[in-house]
């Protein structure tokens, strides 16, 4: 079975995604830091901005020519420039996902889903978080499930990524009532309740950027 039309993802697609994601992070950086203030240390926006700027510059200077290589390059830059909890976690997410795509010049939506799932498994393994711990996983896991579901229903790339983006955004919002059990917010105990997790929010932004890239290509 072939991938549906318009569903092929190549290096160029992911490079465009990187541009869109970086712009979105730039736009939302202050908001991410704001979210990281009451239940964290007020640096998440700055961390993400620093990492994505570096990643975009690196990818522009030496554009990788496979989708896997783009993700690996972005992941490596995040690890080397972000620091904090989010640097290794997002870095692992993207490096694992990139590695799982191998050397193929174009990959299908299903391959992308499998790669993202591998990446998210890496995040769970590294950070030891489970659903409802009030972390980025609470946006990432529902996103992949939604992507998977939409794919099984035969959606186009733009459609399946739009579904993923919606689920990620819902997942981020759903962290508000949760009591944090991982990361800095966990130090607050019950006082972490009532705030949206910054990492889940940035995850939703990154997946929304995927959806937007697909939509602009469609």
């Amino acid at each position, binding site marked *: 079975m072939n991938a549906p039309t318009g569903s092929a993802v190549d290096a160029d697609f992911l490079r465009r995604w990187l541009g869109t994601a970086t712009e979105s992070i730039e736009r939302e950086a202050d908001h991410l830091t704001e979210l990281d*203030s009451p239940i964290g*240390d007020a*640096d998440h926006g700055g961390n993400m901005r620093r990492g994505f700027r570096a990643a975009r510059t690196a990818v522009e200077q030496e554009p990788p020519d496979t989708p896997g290589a783009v993700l690996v390059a972005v992941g490596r830059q995040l690890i080397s420039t972000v*620091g904090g909890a989010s640097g290794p976690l997002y870095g692992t997410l993207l490096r694992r996902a990139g590695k799982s795509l191998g050397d193929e010049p174009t990959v299908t939506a299903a391959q992308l889903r499998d790669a993202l799932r591998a990446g998210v498994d890496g995040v769970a393994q590294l950070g030891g978080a489970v659903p409802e711990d009030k972390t980025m996983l609470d946006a990432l896991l529902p996103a992949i499930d939604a992507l998977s579901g939409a794919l099984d229903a035969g959606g186009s790339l733009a459609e399946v990524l739009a579904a993923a983006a919606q689920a990620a955004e819902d997942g981020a919002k759903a962290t508000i009532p949760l009591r944090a059990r*991982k990361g800095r917010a*966990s130090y607050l105990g019950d006082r972490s309740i009532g705030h949206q997790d910054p990492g889940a929010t940035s995850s939703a932004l990154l997946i929304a950027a995927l959806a937007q890239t697909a939509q602009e290509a469609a």
Partner: protein
Amino acid sequence: MRMLINVPETVVADALRGMSVTYPDLTVDVEHRVVMRKGVPYEGKVALVSGGGSGHEPLHGGFVGRGMLTAACPGEVFTSPVPDQMLRAAAAVDSGAGVLFVVKNYTGDVLNFDMAAELAEDEGVQVAKVLVNDDVAVTDSLYTAGRRGTGATLFVEKIAGAAAEEGAPLDRVAAIAHQVNEMSRTFGVALSAVTTPAKGGPTFDLPDGELELGIGIHGEPGRERRGMMTSGEIADFAVDAVVDDLRPDGPVLLLVNGMGATPLLELYGFAAEVHRVLAQRQVPVARSLVGNYVTSLDMAGASVTICQVDEELLRLWDAPVATPALRWGC
């Protein structure tokens, strides 16, 4: 924004430039963000590398020098450094005797140092790690990221550093570091929130006349907010917290640590109250250190750390140290 800075983006690099012109005994690699003791590696000596987010000065860069850290890796403000830094530091300071990573227990620090350790071992550097987690305000359970590393870091770096200076092998230096951490407890209080350069305003809202009990060193709010307490009442609360948790049955090292903006005048007064409570709890104080050592930018407040010591740890504590922030015996 009451900050003495150029732009938020260059705060850490600017500070490293300043350290580099201020301390002739240190080598400061501003570009790669590594602060090193001059003349490393020292033949046959175990090296100590620590690091963490900036904003806690003099921790860690101010503790680099004879008898303490061999190198420090400062991250962005309140953001743990990246593995590249620790890797570069480890490669530069390893004499072949191995490197001890001193890691404060925060998710970011742990993950980044872990990655660095893997990479360093790939490059043939023998690495041991000690996780510092002394903050009794955080319950160490499945429901948290575990106790934070705060004031005990100073004790671990000083005492393990002295052991390394004496030529102890890596496993011994690591064992001593673990022991110091095991025997240490901290409790902190904030009287004001912190302003980070990136945010430009207080990270949380703490009305005048209220305080946060059980704070960390990253401007996070504590576990509980209370109306203003006297210095004596705060000492009662903090000392009870650490003593009840550690239950020391011998003499302790005491660190009465300022969070940054609390005047030394007040800190001394607080130290008097802490001594009073320790005496009431029949905990003898072998050595006592009062000052701003593990800070949180411009936060007002203080923390109390105790570390129960045997003769060996006390001897290593008293051993000569020559760093920008801690210096005696030489």
